[in-house]
């Protein structure tokens, strides 16, 4: 019976991803949702092309990307922490699944084997080398505050009251990172359902990230096992995750990629994110030492 909650949880996550889709920036409100629906339907009906010299990796990449982010979505709490996979939902596993999902389009780009694809992938992977320590430091500061790496435990501990400084610094570090992060990898050669899988994976990744930030930094309203709290939990999730998504898209127009092509991976925003993440980690360590 406890496993049944996974169904509404996943349905909510997927519905949010499909509704948000990719066109949310272009048009407001329901027009964007309708356009999204038409896009998904068109992609589902479109007959795919299989470029002959390419291998199975070309087709495996979208499926792998979507499958891994679906697993991550099943483990990330949205409105309740009483999910059947709660014992597995640890920060390293979620980071690994989201990383796998984000990197899978790279397989398709490498299969294409063009210079532009290689440069795009190399740029993003190089950025990943500089950004992963920041993510690790922020997640590590949260794990210290809660004394564990399980999402449910961290949410409960932060809801019960944890020092503000490390959480604030961690959130600012993530904001600085969002400001300088590159766009997701492009998938130029795919059509039909493979393209739909890539786009759905990217949208679901965004929903999972927003839910994760909401769970870890603003756990208020997150329900437990009792069914009575689920309504409030759903409302709280919509508000919190929506606010995080709006904040993320507000930061996005300031990205260097949209202003001018950056000659180097380094940027002042990245430096600020490093400093803030280090500050979050150290303040969490001292707060824990004082407690």
């Amino acid at each position, binding site marked *: 019976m406890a496993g049944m909650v996974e169904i509404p949880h996943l349905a909510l996550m997927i519905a949010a991803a499909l509704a948000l889709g990719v066109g949310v920036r272009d048009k407001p409100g329901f027009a964007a949702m309708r356009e999204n629906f038409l896009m998904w339907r068109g992609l589902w009906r*479109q*007959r*795919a092309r*299989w470029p*002959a*010299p*390419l291998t199975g*990796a070309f087709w*495996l990449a979208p*499926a*792998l990307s*979507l*499958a*891994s982010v679906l*697993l991550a979505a099943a483990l990330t709490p949205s409105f309740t922490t009483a999910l059947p996979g709660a014992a*597995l939902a*640890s920060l*390293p*596993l979620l980071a*690994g699944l989201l*990383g*796998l999902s984000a990197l899978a389009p*790279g*397989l398709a780009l*490498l299969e294409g*084997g*063009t*210079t532009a694809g*290689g*440069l795009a992938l*190399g740029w993003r*992977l*190089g950025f*990943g*080398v500089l950004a*992963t*320590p*920041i*993510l690790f*430091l922020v997640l*590590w500061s949260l*794990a*210290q505050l809660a*004394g*564990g*790496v399980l999402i449910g435990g961290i949410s409960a501990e932060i809801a019960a009251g944890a020092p503000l400084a490390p959480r604030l610094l961690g959130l600012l570090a993530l904001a600085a990172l969002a400001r300088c992060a590159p766009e997701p990898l492009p998938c130029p*050669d795919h059509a039909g359902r*493979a393209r739909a899988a890539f786009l759905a994976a990217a949208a679901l990744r965004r929903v999972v990230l927003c839910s994760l930030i909401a769970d870890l930094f603003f756990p208020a309203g997150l329900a437990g096992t009792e069914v009575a709290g689920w309504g409030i939990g759903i409302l709280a999730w919509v508000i919190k995750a929506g606010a995080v998504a709006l904040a993320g898209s507000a930061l996005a127009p300031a990205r260097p990629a949209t*202003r001018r092509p950056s000659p*180097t*991976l*380094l*940027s002042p*925003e990245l*430096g*600020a994110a490093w400093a803030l993440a280090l500050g979050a*980690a*150290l303040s969490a*360590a*001292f707060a824990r030492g004082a407690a």
Partner: protein
Amino acid sequence: MLVPGVMATLVLLLAAGLVAGLVGGAAALLLAAPQRWLGRFLWLAPLGAAVLGGLVCGAGTGGRALLALPLGLPGYGAVLTIDGLAGFFLMASGVALAAVLRLVPPARPAAAALLAGFYASLLAADGFTLIAALAATLVALWRLVAAGRGTVLAGIVGLGALLLALARLAPLFPDGAPDVAFSAMRAAPQAGARGAAIVALALLGAGLIALPLLWPARLGRRVAHEAALIVALLVPSGLYLVLRFTGDLAALGAAPGQDVIIVLGGAALMLGGAREALLTITLGRIAAAVGVALLGEAILACGVAALARGADLTDAAHAAASAALLLVFLASLAPVLLLLVAAVLRAEAGTEALARLGGLAPRLPFTAASALAGASALAALPPGPGFAAMALLLGTLWHLPRIGGGAGAFGAALLVALLGAGLALGVFAMLRFLGLGFLGPPRTPRASAATESDRPACWVLGGLAGLLALAGVAPGLILWLASPALAVLLPAAAAVSGGLRPGWLAWLAPPLLAGLLVALVALMQRFRGAQADAARPESAWQEGYGPPPRWLPFGDPATLIDPACFTASWRCAERPLGAALARLARRPRAAWRAGCAAWWEG
């Protein structure tokens, strides 16, 4: 079921027989006639040793029987035993050594002496036997691979450092002579600066013995099979020495300062190896760099275990030591597998240079799958074996700031950041290796005409890849086999909890996740829809380039991805990053102002 003590004696006798047989075999090889016959079947010896090690680990009954041989210095008879640690290393190293010797039967008798010395060093239970066996192994290896004078000198200095560490470890008899038996050293653990000096000497000795030959720039120049033999022997040897000295003889975490030395050494090796794997352009060198990076990861995990053990954090020490042993298994197998893949590619595609490979996955599917399994050891993504080890290690790190106050917190934060950078570098390097080597269009005629290797090579590659995949899907099994070794490293924890077998989560979670992932991918393959045509869509204007002319059937080189251009942005970032850090250290206020100005200018 045999009584454990009887079984341990039996295993010990078998092991001694194995060593004696190898020594006898080397002598027979020297005598002449049956040289070729013995060389062909020498691979069975390490395979037997691996089975033996597996038996010891599975039964969990090591270290109870000592075999005193009537050999050695006056008054010091050589003592052999198989404890859990030796059994685990027998198992991990035996498979890789058997794979190498199966594919390339050794033509020289030194190979048998090499194995005899190596196994004697694993079974040694006193200092003199360990040093003598190591010396025999190294002399045989140097002879086999024609090592240079510098390597030999470094090895001799390394042996000297180990001897010094043993001299500081050994308690004295009433008459002033040192007691070199390991059991006596364990009974009198060294604390304080003395313990830290022992660990530093042991790390120095292991590094000087292993690293000159494992150095990627040098190893990459060797023939791939020879390089595979060096890696299969020296990576487990180096790790065994580190774990035996720091984890067992000097008692893990007993002396303050030793953990920091281990962590620093491991982090430097991990980052350096992963960076080398990312920037280099030949397959052999990448595989060697993977070996160094995994060696560093294992040593780093051992250092984290020492940190946690020193602060009496038993659970964290247990998890970190488990991660270290899992990484020992991976470091013994993965680089050897990648070097054997490099040998196959050299034979079938004519080159090891990434720029001249490409498009090999459909032509060599078996080799490509093996390369994927080998690469997944360093690229810590689920459901690979590297991820299982890293998840264990990352789960312990939040304990660390309890140790050492402000400096400790800063050091721990730096360690977390370095670990993140190392993991991302590993993923980057392995994606580049797989993508450029096996995916995309073939870049040379030779690569486009490559075919799958012969059947024995496929079997050997498949066996190693299967073991690595098993470590990823069922790390609980490897951790179960590693639990006697864990009891050697953490005897107090073993005594308290009555055994260190892995919990249900380690058994259940990885296969469940991997199964779900595979099932979802298979389900999506069913729904991927109909295909419209089988021709590659050639648009007239692809990414700013026209279609390649007829006389360039493998595409225009200007439009094809290149190993160097793939890492261009990272190489561009490295130099200013170093310059910016230097500037920040030299003139912090000016650096701050420049950063602010750059921020506001956008």
